[in-house]
């Protein structure tokens, strides 16, 4: 069904509003029927009292003055009265007999109005009623004085037609609807919080736990979620601990080997030996970085992002002077943002080093968020002119220890951790990094960083 909304809040609101509307309608109908009965009773009472008082006024007037008296009485609107000699209703035979309650009410009224018993009408004939909206009553005057006939209009009761009624109904409906929507939103909020927390956990295992208060069901769900998050965290921590413990333990033997290398007489061999050791050390460093990215404790502080980008390039140039001429920065000279500078430097450094290692150079572009733009996100692009990355592998290379066949064959060294470290760090900043291939060939890393 296309009209059925997708969000739980909207669905709940719709169901509640329909229920509310049904209850309103039922309640109003019952009320209206009641009112109709009430109105009818009132009408009957009014009419019978009017009839009785009119009759008394006529019967107590002197016989000769009756016509004048009748003319002088101000009858209520819709009522006509006449004094006749013959039995009335020769023509009114078409009207049905009056309903019994009406008839009884009128007869009772005749007794309730004070007058001597002999003045009471000798005979009452009634036709019509509420259904036909007309009532004809003929009351026979005592003696041979003829009949007092009265014809009156009985208005059909109209319970729906009170002027304040519609306004009240509209007001009630709107108020109830607003209240319902507000309440539903409030009740549904924990579900949204839970979804947001799951999202956050996916990006950062160290995201703060959910608060476990609120309604029982919500608190239970939050507690279950927190337990799950804690288990995932412990799992990640254990694995990372294993990795870093290995890295730590490797430092002593590597230090020894580096010292030993100083005693190798053959200079060429010594240099090769050192190069191998540097490679091993780089792997250990990457492993330790990987462990640390998950448990970052560095506080965020204002950082000149433009300078940081340039420093990353400068550092790469210091380490590999042969690539210095193929490194370029484009962007503002200064741009301040909050970041964990050490971690961010490592993340960008890994991307720049990849561009140099696999693409022969790096062009880094910093694009600050557009002025007045909605999302305050800075973008950093790192491009190279290398072979790029097969489209199927664009995501896979972010997994730890994933290296592409081509790079393994080229013996560039590396552990396959660089990209996953970069992504961990950037996601912990609330940003991300993705890879794509440039139209002109070469790879492009796109970093987003909320500022």
């Amino acid at each position, binding site marked *: 069904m296309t009209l059925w909304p997708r969000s739980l809040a909207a669905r709940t609101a719709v169901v509640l509003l329909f229920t509310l509307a049904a209850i309103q309608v039922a309640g109003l109908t019952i009320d209206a029927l009641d009112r109709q009965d009430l109105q009818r009773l009132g009408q009957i009472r009014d009419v019978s009292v009017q009839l009785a008082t009119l009759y008394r006024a006529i019967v107590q007037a002197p016989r000769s003055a009756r016509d004048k008296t009748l003319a002088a009485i101000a009858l209520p609107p819709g009522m006509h009265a006449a004094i006749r000699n013959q039995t009335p209703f020769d023509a009114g035979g078409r009207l049905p007999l009056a309903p019994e309650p009406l008839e009884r009410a009128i007869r009772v009224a005749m007794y309730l109005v004070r007058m001597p018993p002999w003045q009471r009408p000798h005979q009452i004939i009634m036709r019509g009623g509420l259904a036909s909206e007309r009532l004809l009553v003929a009351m026979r005057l005592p003696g041979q004085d003829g009949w007092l006939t009265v014809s009156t209009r009985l208005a059909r009761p109209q319970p729906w037609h009170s002027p304040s009624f519609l306004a009240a109904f509209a007001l009630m409906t709107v108020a109830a609807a607003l209240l319902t929507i507000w309440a539903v939103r409030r009740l549904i909020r924990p579900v949204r919080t839970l979804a947001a927390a799951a999202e956050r956990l996916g990006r950062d295992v160290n995201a703060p736990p959910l608060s476990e208060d609120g309604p029982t069901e919500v608190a239970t769900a939050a507690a279950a979620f927190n337990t799950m998050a804690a288990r995932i965290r412990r799992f990640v921590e254990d694995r990372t601990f294993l990795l870093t413990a290995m890295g*730590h333990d490797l*430092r*002593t033997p*590597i*230090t*020894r080997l*580096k*010292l*030993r*290398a*100083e*005693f190798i007489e053959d200079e060429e061999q010594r240099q090769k030996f*050192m190069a191998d*050791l540097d490679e091993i*050390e780089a792997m*250990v*460093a990457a492993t*330790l*970085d990987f462990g*640390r990215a998950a448990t970052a404790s*560095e506080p965020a*502080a*204002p*950082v*000149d992002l433009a*300078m*940081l980008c340039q*420093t*990353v390039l*400068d*550092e790469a140039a*210091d*380490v*590999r*002077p042969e690539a210095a001429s193929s490194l370029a920065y484009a962007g503002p000279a200064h741009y*301040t943002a909050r970041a964990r*500078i*050490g971690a961010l*430097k490592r993340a960008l450094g890994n991307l720049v080093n990849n561009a140099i290692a696999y693409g022969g150079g790096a062009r880094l572009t910093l694009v600050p968020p557009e002025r007045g733009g909605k999302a305050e996100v800075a973008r950093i692009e790192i491009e190279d002119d290398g072979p790029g990355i097969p489209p199927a592998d664009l995501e896979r290379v972010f997994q730890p220890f994933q290296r592409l066949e081509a790079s393994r064959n080229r013996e560039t060294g590396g552990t396959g951790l660089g990209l996953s470290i970069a992504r961990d760090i950037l996601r912990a900043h609330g940003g991300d990094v993705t890879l794509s291939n440039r139209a002109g060939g070469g790879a492009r890393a796109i970093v987003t960083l909320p500022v």
Partner: protein
Amino acid sequence: METAQHILVVDDDREIRELLARFLERNRFRVTAVRDAREARRAWPHAHFHLVVLDLMLPGESGLELARWMRSQSDIPIIMLTAMGEDTDRIVGLELGADDYVAKPFNPRELLARIRAVLRRAGEPAVRRETAGAAALCFAGWTLEPARRRLLNPDGVEVALTGGEYDLLLALVERANRVLTRDMLLDLLRGRQAGPFDRAIDVAISRLRRKLDDDGRRAQLIKTVRGGGYVLATSIERR
């Protein structure tokens, strides 16, 4: 020839101790190598050491405590060997007044360069008094925090520096208003950088000027001295 300078090496790994001693001796230093804080304290009164190479991860009494004790005894320069990437160790060590640090696993030649640079610096008494233990060095609105190895601009925003740039700036700040010769700069950068050092100095200086917003041609802060050398022309405030 001057008498060899005496270095105390404190490291718990026997192999590293012996290899480091051999390596430093070959580079014309006298070396005493001990395995922990107790032995270091025992050796302390028997010799006049010029510098200590101290591993922070020692069994028993920690390297940090030993460094604190040594600081209370004398002004001796200390180079710490820290675990790779353990920033907190490094920061605490430098705050305690260690003169420099080298991360393990270190390149022996880099350690040698650091030892020489620190010894040279220790030979200039005025320099040591100015920076040892200072939490922050302020100049022309900028703040250099030696313990955290970071530079803050006048707005308190951190401006990233490469390792070489930081060493260079610290050297300039420590010797503000005094000329830093090219020889001293070469010393600083050796072991940090590959390639021809001569050019590296000019590159690093021009980068530093850019980062300090010091226009290259009319540089006010880092001035070029004719005949080779640079001077930081500003007063320094210690905090």
